[in-house]
Structure formats: C-alpha cells, structure tokens
C-alpha cells in the first residue's frame, strides 16, 4: 500500500465495493496460491487445521461431491471400507478445491491463537536475551532466526500479534461504527443531509490517509491507540460510501416496496430487509479494511509512531531489523512476510465471502 494510502482503498472514489478487493475469478482460489508456493510459513500451518476444516462443513461436502476426485485419491481407497473411503474421497476433493481457502483460514486461525494465547504456539520468550545466540539465521530451533540480543524472532512476532492487531481492531471498529452511521444516515436521509455528509467524506478522501494519520498523531501524540484512532478516521470515508451505496441499492429493490405496501413500518423494513441485505458488501469491505488497517498501522509503527521500541510490534520489528539488512536480512523481512501473508489471507477470505453470497 505505498501509493494509495492505507485505509483508503480505491473503493471510496469509484463507489464499487469490489474494487479494493481481489477481483472475482471463476475458480475458488486467488493470489494466495502464488504466495503459498513462495512462502514457507503457511506450509507449517497447513496440516493440523487441514483435517478439522474438512470435517466441519458437512453441507459443503454435498456440493463438492459432483467434483471429479482428486488425482491422488484412488490410492487411498481401501476396499474394505467403501463408505469411509468415499467420505475420505469427498473430503480430499473438497480440500483440493478449497486448498487456498483452507490455507487462508488456517493462517487466520493461527493469528487469532497467537493474539489470544501466544504461549500455545511458541514456548520461547519474546524478551529473553541470549548472548550466545545473536543474529542466528532461521533454523529448526529459531524459525525466524534471532536478533542482535539473541531474542527468538518468531517468539517476538507471535507475542507481538495482539499488540499489532489491537490497533487494526480499534481502527476498523471505529471506522465501521462511524462509517455505517454516516452511510445509513446519508442513504436514508437523501437531499441536503446526504449532500453535506458526502461532501464531508469527500474532503476526508482528498487528504491521503497516511498523511492524515500523521497529522493526527502529530496533534494527539504517538502510541498504538493514537495510531489506531488516526487510521480509523482515515478509513471512515470508504465505509461511509460503501454503506450509502448499498443502502441506496437495497432501498429501491422491489421487495422493500412490497414490505411497505404490505404495511410494514420503516424501522421494521430497515431492520429486517435493508440492513441484512446491505450488510454483505459492508462485511466484505470490513474484512478488506481490516487488512488495510493492519498495513496502515504497521506502516505507521515502521515510521516510528507506534508502540515504543521494546514492544514487539510488527512494524517496529521490521524497522529495527533494518539496521542488520546486510548481515541478517531475515530480521526485517520475516515479520513483514507475516503481515503480508495475513493481509493476503484476509483478502482471500473477503473474496470467498463475496463469492459465496453472490
């Protein structure tokens, strides 16, 4: 997100919720596939959750049953247990078709666990220094290597998850609340109120997100919360615009008119028809914006406005790793890779939701 600033996906301007997202393709997979081929981290996460994911959606297996079986499958078929074999076959076919989605879901699951209970993922401490193990390259023991003080970088990344995501959660929460309120209000009010609200949003759009965030941080001070606030404000326009566009779209649909003609009151119509039907694109947008918020927050902390140095916030990990780029490039690259894969997974999930709802 270097030029189009964080928190401001292109959506804002063109009023098409899908713009910021991954373009829809006929298949169920997207760029995450490419990333999975190049990235190593996802491979480790893929196996354990693979199975649990396959078992869960029984309804989806039905839809996958018409798919030709995965090429490897016949070897696994045991003649003695035809029913079980068929189930395995279906499960494999499902896994094959949704491999990338499963990988993305696994990534998200891993990140959630890391945020809530980092100790479940790594036993190393993020703060314990080890003078004998300085700047070690990635190995089986230290997946991301160690830093200049001998701290395990993987542990730092894992333990930094909650801090890094906190900002994004606050930012998205704020922008969803304010953006939804403005969008719904503008969509329903029409006329002057609509014009005024949308003009205000336009003004916010004219200031690049990162610059707006930096100005706000200048005024209210550094720190994760302030950065989150600044990023959140920068993301309000796109939410407001998407919500308004959705409300306007749903508002003119015949079934809304049918409900009014049937005698339903407006609050009821809004709650039972407009909000549920408008929420899809807004939800997709929310997931996408969450990714954008992660990028924006990490960019701001990379620039040094976020959490103070010892805290293992992802952006500042990259920033402090920069000093060792020539000798130990993994210090800067590994945390950034995690950010990228996380956002990639979020975008993929957003696209999957979008397609599932279509």
């Amino acid at each position, binding site marked *: 997100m270097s030029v*189009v600033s964080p928190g*401001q996906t292109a959506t804002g301007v063109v009023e098409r919720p899908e713009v910021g997202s991954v*373009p829809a393709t006929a298949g169920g997979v997207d*760029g995450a596939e490419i990333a999975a081929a190049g990235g190593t981290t996802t491979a480790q996460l893929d196996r354990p959750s693979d199975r649990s994911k396959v078992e869960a959606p029984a309804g989806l297996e039905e839809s996958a049953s018409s798919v030709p079986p995965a090429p490897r499958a016949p070897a696994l078929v045991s003649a003695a247990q035809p029913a079980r074999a068929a189930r395995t076959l279906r499960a494999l076919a499902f896994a094959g078709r949704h491999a990338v989605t499963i990988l993305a879901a696994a990534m998200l699951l891993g990140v959630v666990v890391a945020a809530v209970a980092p100790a479940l993922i790594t036993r190393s401490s993020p703060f314990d220094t080890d003078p004998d193990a300085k700047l070690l390259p990635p190995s089986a023991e230290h997946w991301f290597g160690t830093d200049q003080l001998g701290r395990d970088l993987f542990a730092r990344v894992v333990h930094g998850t909650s801090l890094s995501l906190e900002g994004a959660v606050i930012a998205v929460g704020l922008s969803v609340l304010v953006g939804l309120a403005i969008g719904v209000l503008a969509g329903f009010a029409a006329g002057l109120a609509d014009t005024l609200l949308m003009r205000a949003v336009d003004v916010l759009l004219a200031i690049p997100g990162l610059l707006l965030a930096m100005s706000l941080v*200048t005024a209210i001070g550094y720190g994760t919360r302030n950065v989150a606030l600044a990023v959140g404000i920068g993301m309000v326009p796109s939410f407001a615009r998407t919500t308004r566009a959705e409300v306007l779209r749903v508002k003119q649909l015949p079934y809304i008119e049918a409900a009014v003609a049937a005698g339903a009151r407006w609050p009821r119509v809004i709650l039972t028809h407009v909000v549920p039907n408008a929420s899809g694109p807004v939800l997709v947008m929310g997931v996408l914006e969450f990714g954008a918020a992660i990028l924006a927050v990490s960019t701001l902390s990379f620039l040094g406005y976020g959490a103070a140095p010892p805290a293992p916030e992802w952006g500042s990990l990259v920033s402090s790793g920069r000093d060792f780029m020539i000798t130990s490039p993994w210090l800067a690259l590994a945390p950034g890779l995690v950010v990228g894969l996380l956002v990639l997974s979020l975008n993929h999930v957003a696209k999957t939701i979008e397609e599932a709802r279509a």
Partner: protein
Amino acid sequence: MKFVLSRVGQALLVLWAAFTVTFVILEVLPSDAIETKYNNAGGDSVNLTEENLDALRSEFGLDLPLWQRYLQFCGRAIQLDLGNSISQNRPVTDLLVENLPPTLQLAGFALAVGLVAGCAIAFLANWLRSPLLRRALTRLPALGVAFPSFWIGLLLVQLFSFHWQLFPATGSRTPASVVLPGLMMAIGPAAILAQLLNRSLSETLQEQYIVTAGAKGLGRGEVFWRHALRNASLPALTILGMMVAGTVTGAIVAETVFSRAGVGRLAQQAVEVQDLPLVQGIVLMAAFAFVTVNLIVDLIYPVLDRRIKVS
C-alpha cells in the same frame, strides 16, 4: 463553460475544506509546537520560562484567538504564503519548493511504471489464451496489495542492491537511485490499477456490444482495441486522482526506507518535531494534487464518455 466553472468551484471548495480540516486537527487539539521545539528537543536545550514561550508564541501568531488565526491563515494561504516552519524558521513554501524536485522525479517514475505495469497486467490477463497465464496474471496483483510497501522496499534493496548490486540502496543524486524507491512506490498502485482494470475489462468483454462488434466480422484485436479497452478504462480514470495524491504517502515511506531527500522526508521530520505549519503545508499540497488530478479527470470524462451530461 458553466460546467468547467462549477467543477473548478467544487474543487476549490474541497481544497478549502481540506485546509480547514487540517487547521482544526492541528490547532484545536492539545499540543504546543513551541514547547515541543524548545523544551523537548534534546536533553540540553535551554529551559525557557513561560514568558519567553509566550513571546515566541506571539511571534508565530499563536496567541491570537482561534478564529482570528484561522482567518489570518486563510488570508495568507490565498497568497500562497503558508507561514513559517517552526522547526526550521523558514517559509513553508520555500521548503516545499526546495524538496519537491527529487520527490517529483520519484513520483513521476513510480506513476509511469505503475500505470504501464497495471495496464499491461490487466490487458494480458484478458488477452492471453492460456488459462493458466490468465489466472496467474489475475491473481498477481493480490500480492502487491497485501504486502506492506516498506517490506517490498526492503526486499528490493536486499535483492537488487546487496545481492545483485544493480542499483544503489540509498541516496538521491544519481538517476539510478530513483529505480528501487520508484519500483517500491509503483507496486501498490500498479496492483490496484491492475485489479480494477482487469475486472472492468472482463466485464466489458461480456457486454452485448462486444458481440455486435464480433458479429460484424471484426478480428479479436480490433474488438479489443476499438471496443473494449476504451470503455473498460473509463472506471479506472477515477482512481487516477487518488494514485497521484497517494504518491505523497508513498514518498514518505520510500524516502524513509531509501534515505532520500524530498517532501516525504520533510513530512516525516515535520511530524517528529510537531512542526504544525509545515505539516499543514504538506497536507495542503497533497490535497491540491488530488483535487487537481480529479478536476482534470472530471473535465475530460465527458469528452471520453458522451453519456455524461455537461450541464
């Protein structure tokens, strides 16, 4: 003519509002640049008394009531006087003009690369016949959108400077020094443009008039160039303004990663020392770029698409 005037008026209105917003953010919120400068800057700075501070405040006009300061600010801004930088004690306009050339080079290079790459990816994703390549090109932009630009920059440095030693990792003097930061700045917008254009192009190719064109007996290339591309690129025009304004943001990160001089670096420094007039000046400049490009797009849109009524 009326159309042009009304669009220019709207643009000026947005610019004024953006100006007001930054004024409010920076002036109303609790922070004191004078104190920041003279009391927090380094350990051994002179500790000034309240009196000294007040004198300095009135020197920068910070003791006046808010509305007077606002009016004063507006009045000066119209004459392109954005006040004095507190940290450097020089007119903001001078600082901007001084730092603009290297940033413009960088932004120009990045925009050019971004436009060409974005268009090329979208075009090839729809033109090539191999389903594999089409899919790969369709998904490629997802990477450019997902990875943080500063990380991409560091990766470029690692590969092209340290590993292959093709381009310098820092500096802003030689033309070659533009390449890596330029590429880094180009990837994000290229990816977004590619996604937008790709979607728009594949939707356009489903249109009925594409069938009509094919039914005339036109070749695939003729249908593509004459009928699909122009219509498909219209929606992409609307993000041009955002791309241009975004280069300011991109420059902040790129100039930090590559230790280059420029407006981005200036912004970064201004924020660090809470130099409000300077931050405000930079924000205004970015908003001006956004508004200007959008104005141009607005003005040429009706020429490209006659359905947009000029009224």
